[in-house]
């Protein structure tokens, strides 16, 4: 006896070609004996045909593919360069040279690093944007105070003339470490955009790659969102409040991370963060109701510089293979 429900269950197997020949023939005979089942079967096959037509219509034309190829080629080249850099950074010296020589080399590198850090500690010019409070202090004439010594045995307190006075603060700073203390982030920015980054660990400290990866992921998301921005109404008004807020937030972090990457000598990361920064600045500085041209000019530059692709390459690099 014909059971519509039983046939319905098998219809999906039939349209997706999961039945053997005998089962298929039997089912088709049964379908043909029931108008409702036949209609359902035909509707299903028609649906799949319509889906195929829609998919075909959505395919890009031939002019799309050369640019796609070129983009892929560029990304692979970027990927190769990055892999090379990673291999270089993971290069294990000790496995190739005798241990004493490796130790001597490492000591030499540390000594050079210390020398460089000492030199840098005296001459480094902090980033004016971030370290403005530090710079403001630096630019002030350094006072050389008279130092009052503690009372001596006779109960007299002597005053040491300025040229003989020892600046204890200076000694404390130079004897403790060769790198200046991390300056505080300028409060010129809105406090709600306060950046949460790991403590500054100096030029010899390890760079927190996880923080960078997260930052770049957020930036990628932001740029994608911006790229897809469309006028909300017919009057051509763009709603970019979220993008502006997020850009301002990410800009602060980007500056700090870029400086850290620079100090660490991590050139690829520094380069990527540097190329990202102008976009964050431009988006953050857009007016509340930006003109269509402003939005388009940024989008065009994003396209030209392939910034989203670069961020994607970085993410792919830091992610597990698949």
């Amino acid at each position, binding site marked *: 006896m014909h059971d519509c429900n039983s046939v319905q269950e098998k219809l999906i197997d039939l349209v*997706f070609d999961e039945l053997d020949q005998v089962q298929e023939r039997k089912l088709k005979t049964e379908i043909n004996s029931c108008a409702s089942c036949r209609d359902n079967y035909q509707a299903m096959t028609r649906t799949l045909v*319509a889906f195929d037509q829609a*998919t075909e219509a*959505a395919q890009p034309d031939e002019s799309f593919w050369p640019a796609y190829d070129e*983009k892929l080629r560029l990304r*692979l080249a970027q*990927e190769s360069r990055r892999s090379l850099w990673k291999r270089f950074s993971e290069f294990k010296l000790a496995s190739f040279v005798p241990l004493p020589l490796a130790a001597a080399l490492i000591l030499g590198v540390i000594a050079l690093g210390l020398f460089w850090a000492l030199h840098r500690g005296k001459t480094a010019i902090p980033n004016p944007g971030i370290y403005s409070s530090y710079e403001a202090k630096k630019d002030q004439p350094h006072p050389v105070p008279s130092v009052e010594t503690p009372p001596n045995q006779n109960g007299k307190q002597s005053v040491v003339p300025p040229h003989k006075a020892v600046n204890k603060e200076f000694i404390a700073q130079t004897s403790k470490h060769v790198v200046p203390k991390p300056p505080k982030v300028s409060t010129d920015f809105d406090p709600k955009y306060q950046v949460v980054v790991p403590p500054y660990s100096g030029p010899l400290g390890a760079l927190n790659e996880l923080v960078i990866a997260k930052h770049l992921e957020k930036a990628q998301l932001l740029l*994608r969102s911006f790229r897809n921005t*469309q006028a909300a109404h017919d009057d051509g008004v763009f709603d970019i409040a979220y993008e502006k807020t997020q850009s301002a937030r990410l800009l602060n972090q980007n500056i700090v991370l870029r400086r850290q990457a620079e100090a660490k000598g991590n050139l690829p990361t520094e380069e990527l963060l540097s190329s990202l920064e102008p976009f964050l600045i431009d988006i953050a500085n857009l007016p509340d109701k930006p003109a269509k041209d402003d939005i388009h000019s940024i989008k065009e530059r994003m396209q030209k510089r392939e910034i989203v692709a670069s961020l994607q390459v970085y993410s792919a690099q830091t992610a597990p293979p*698949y």
Partner: protein
Amino acid sequence: MSIGENELIRRAQAGDGDSFCLLAKGYQRRIYSLALSYCRDPHDAEDLSQEVWLKAFKAIGSFRGESSFYTWLRQITVNSFLNHRRGMTVMVGDKSTTVKMEELETVTEMDSSPIGRSINVEDQFNNRIMVDRVMQALDELTPQQRLMFLLKHREGMTYEEISKSFGCTTGTVKKALFRAVLKLREHLGINIESEDCSPFSAGSI
């Protein structure tokens, strides 16, 4: 003289990017097409499909030739698609904001995009409506259901292969396929069936 696929794979494994590009050329339309149906957005599809190639390039050293290159590539594709986060919600201060993604809405927009092959405006318009409806139908499926449907219908994988790929039962795959076809029928307006005839409940995976 054309170089065989095995030779291209060997060269790509040795780090030759050009050989990998040649290898990719043979499959890139297929991967892009899958990505487009999966993302429903041309820009995202381009990004996602290129991400697949980057991952494949990084992992090609691990390809041992135990399956065909495309089978291996398809598994990377499935993993990449499922890891792809689209339209995700991010927190801005205390409030959550959905990152907006481009929607396939206007006909005029199509003129400037690479989409569309139709000759006249009317065909273009009709195609656009059909594409839009299909995309809306796909949008109502979970990413897993959508991908299962694409792997079955576009890639011709068996229930068994799909269930292995996703680590689920063949029953789950069948449910997903039924739901996908049902949604497509609804959106395309093809002879909507009555409720009592539905053999599967439309439960999520």
